[in-house]
């Protein structure tokens, strides 16, 4: 099958850094190591023929109970869209529970909450993220629910809502305002 433009250019530019690539049902997927993530994504964004200007989504997967063996337990899939050329690509990074994946918040602001959610649900850390805090589950939650070994009915009661002053102080510092109390 003929390789699409995206896959060809990535192979040309990055060679061995691309751990694998595939195209299934019209979706192009490249698997890269976490060290090459930023370089690959920057190339995808800046190349004139590719121009993937839009980060659609970042999703996490836990392959613990998957029948087919995978390189590591977790994967983070970045979906990109090029509005100029209307093509899409998926960049996957495999990681174990202890790995830290570089953050994309410097390049796209939408990565902020997507990565927070992956941290919340899977426990994967993102190096350089400005505010890696739980997003969907409550502040007293222990564990990471979307992991396959988290029992679905294990409920955790919250005693008091998060006052959120820590996040607010960070935001105020960003804006150059100081709270006197």
């Amino acid at each position, binding site marked *: 099958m003929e390789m699409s433009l995206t896959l060809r250019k990535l192979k040309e530019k990055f060679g061995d850094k691309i751990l694998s690539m595939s195209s299934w049902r019209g979706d192009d997927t490249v698997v890269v190591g976490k060290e090459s993530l930023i370089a690959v994504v920057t190339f995808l964004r800046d190349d004139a023929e590719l121009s993937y200007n839009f980060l659609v989504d970042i999703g996490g997967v836990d392959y613990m109970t998957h029948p087919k063996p995978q390189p590591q337990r977790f994967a983070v899939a970045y979906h990109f869209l090029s509005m100029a050329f209307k093509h899409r690509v998926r960049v996957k990074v495999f990681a174990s529970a202890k790995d830290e994946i570089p953050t994309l918040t410097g390049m796209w602001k939408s990565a902020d909450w997507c990565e927070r959610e992956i941290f919340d649900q899977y426990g994967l850390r993102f190096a350089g993220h400005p505010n890696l805090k739980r997003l969907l589950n*409550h502040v007293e939650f222990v564990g990471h*629910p979307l992991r396959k070994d*988290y029992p*679905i009915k*294990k*409920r955790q009661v*919250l005693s*008091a*809502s998060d006052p959120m002053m820590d996040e607010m102080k960070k935001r105020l510092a960003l804006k150059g305002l100081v709270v006197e109390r």
Partner: protein
Amino acid sequence: MGVETQGEASWLVTRVDEVLNWGRKYSLWPMTFGTACCAIEFMGAVSSVFDLARFGAEVVRFSPRQADLLLVAGTITYKQAPVLKQIYDQMPDPKWVISMGACASSGGFYDNYCTVQGIDEFVPVDVYIAGCPPRPEAILDAIIKLQEGVVSKETIASGASA
């Protein structure tokens, strides 16, 4: 007052109770704690086709201090639960709670780590409405049932001695 503690004057208190309860049940002011899809159906019940106003429950108050009916419409998660408890505590007596929809009554089909399996885990519920979401007619039916129940809920005697 003191008159309600006198045995012979209890007939007066009963009459006053009846009038007060009649007033209460035909002017239930709902505090809509709408979280999810049931809130949209509640908005449908308030709209002019089904018209909740004819039952006296037109004044939908968003402040718990001004409402006497807490209508929980939608799924309550463990994150939301302290908020709901606080709202319930802020409402003055006498107050009633209607649990609208499957999620508020029992967790619905979300039997998982984050959904409260029924708000009666931490607030006392007077009427449960089944449905996902319940039709607006079901909400009207619940208000009518509640109105029938208001008669025996509170008396001046119990209020004064509480």
